[in-house]
């Protein structure tokens, strides 16, 4: 029966689905319908929600309520808060391990990365990392977790079996987001103040490339790479460039910037529609979400959400 249901879901129109956006200042989540491109639901959360991610079966949603010092677990259907997880202080970003059970959380104020078991709701480990940890990534095989620390300007490579750091790599100023490629051979890290994205080989943690950005008519100081997402074919990367109000399209093979797309003010993070044809960007200052047609590389619509939208996650 479940199999049939899954098939039915797969056969459903490709554009069905929702984008969940955390509004940092409103303490809410805005839910955008991918088909109508309208906000269909607004759900209250803890204080200053930022990072957001779904469980593998999309029944629960984890929310970093930074100022409530907790990670909230919400029923994705009803929007009720089921319980809270012990997260350590000021959780900002996190990543759910492929085992669907361990949440790796960056505690910005404490310079630690906390590992929480979402089933027993207990802290499994705390790992000392650099100052102001923020970006979190997990390798596809689940063996490596990355924490980037904003002030130490490092990517810390953590072995998930021993819960210890096995490598540190320097990146440019204020690394904010990290992401493994789908095949796990590369790690990409964005540096907000440095204005670059650094690409590492996961074999020996060596730097393969560094990508610079330049938006015509925008002062270089305002070009601040933060969130980024790989397209389905893994050939392009969309990089949000913060207060430059643009999203860059980077060729993932040549590491060249191919396009810049104008979006709302201070773009933070992004999420794809279920079929990956649309990309939704959270624009912090203008309080809206811009929809990008991935194939055309053009912004098609901007949707008003709450104040200071930050994180985004897709629910099919």
């Amino acid at each position, binding site marked *: 029966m479940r199999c049939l249901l899954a098939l039915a879901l797969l056969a459903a129109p490709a554009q069905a689905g929702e984008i969940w956006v955390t509004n940092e200042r409103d303490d809410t989540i805005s839910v955008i319908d991918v088909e109508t491109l309208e906000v269909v639901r607004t759900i209250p959360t803890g204080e200053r929600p930022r990072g957001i991610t779904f469980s593998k079966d999309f029944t629960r949603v984890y929310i970093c309520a930074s100022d409530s010092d907790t990670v909230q677990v919400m029923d994705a259907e009803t929007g009720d808060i089921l319980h809270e997880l012990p997260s350590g202080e000021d959780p900002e970003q996190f990543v759910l391990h492929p085992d669907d059970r361990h949440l790796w959380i960056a505690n910005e104020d404490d310079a630690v990365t906390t590992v929480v078991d979402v089933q027993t709701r207990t802290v499994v480990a705390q790992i000392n990392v650099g100052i102001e940890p923020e970006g979190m990534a997990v390798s596809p095989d689940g063996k490596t977790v990355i924490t980037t620390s904003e002030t130490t300007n490092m990517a810390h490579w953590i072995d998930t079996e021993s819960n210890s750091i096995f490598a540190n790599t320097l990146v440019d100023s204020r690394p904010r987001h990290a992401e493994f490629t789908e095949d796990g051979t590369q790690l990409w890290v964005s540096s907000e103040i440095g204005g670059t994205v650094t690409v590492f080989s996961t074999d020996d943690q060596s730097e393969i490339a560094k990508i610079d950005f330049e938006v*015509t*008519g925008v002062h270089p100081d305002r070009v601040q790479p933060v969130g980024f997402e790989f397209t389905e074919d893994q050939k392009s990367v969309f990089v949000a460039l913060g207060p430059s*109000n643009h999203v860059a399209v980077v060729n993932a093979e040549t590491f060249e910037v191919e396009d810049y797309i*104008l979006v*709302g*003010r201070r773009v933070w993070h992004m999420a794809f529609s279920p079929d990956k044809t649309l990309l939704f960007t959270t624009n912090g200052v203008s309080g809206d979400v811009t929809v990008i047609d991935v194939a055309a590389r053009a912004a098609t*619509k901007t949707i008003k959400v709450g104040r200071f939208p930050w994180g985004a996650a897709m629910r099919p």
Partner: protein
Amino acid sequence: MRRGLTALRAIVLREALRFLGQRGRLVAALVRPLVWLLVFAAGFRAALGLSIIPPYQTYIAYETYIVPGLCGMILLFNGMQSSLSLTYDREMGSMKLLLTSPLPRWWLLVCKLMAGSVISILQAYAFLAIAALYGIQMPWQGYLLALPALFIAALMLGALGLALSSFIKQLENFAGVMNFVIFPMFFLSSALYPLWKMAEAGRVLHSICAANPFTHAVELIRFALYATPNLPALGWTLLALAAFMALALWGYDPARGMMRRKG
């Protein structure tokens, strides 16, 4: 009916021949808006995007904003130029030839107007093509829907030119038309800045811009280019067209208008 169409064809052809004969005019007609687009707009600090106003669905660069306004500028200049060429025709004597036609005068004026509008539209599309190559593209439906919008706007601005030409005695007065009609119409409109921006600058300014028929012509073109209906703009443009046309017919009426006084 057939004679009327023959006259229309002849007048459109003459206008087209005259236009093709003046290569400089085509270049000038394209250079003017292109300078605005490539130099003025590029230097303007709006790389960070204008706030969202209909018909736009998302943030746009300033270059994208002024394209419909520059289409309007092409229609405005060309409308004035082709209608005021009647002044030249009057001086050269070819107008007498035209007026000896047995067809009603209003029809001859409408023919003249349509001829000028066709030229205007060709110029506007040439400009849109260059803008598209430059990277400012509209949805494809927009390019189709822009045709009637451009035509109505061109007729309206041409009719204004006709009405003015009936009051102008000499060709030299074109400079006066530039200063007192074209520039105020262009600058006091939504061609360069959205109306809300004008409202920030002052209520009087905003009211003038909102009443300017050129604003409505530009908005009509803008909405058409994005395949979005804008009935108020359409209504006001048509109303202005009717008013200017009536004024032109009155001006060219030998029994009552200015023609008699000029002899």
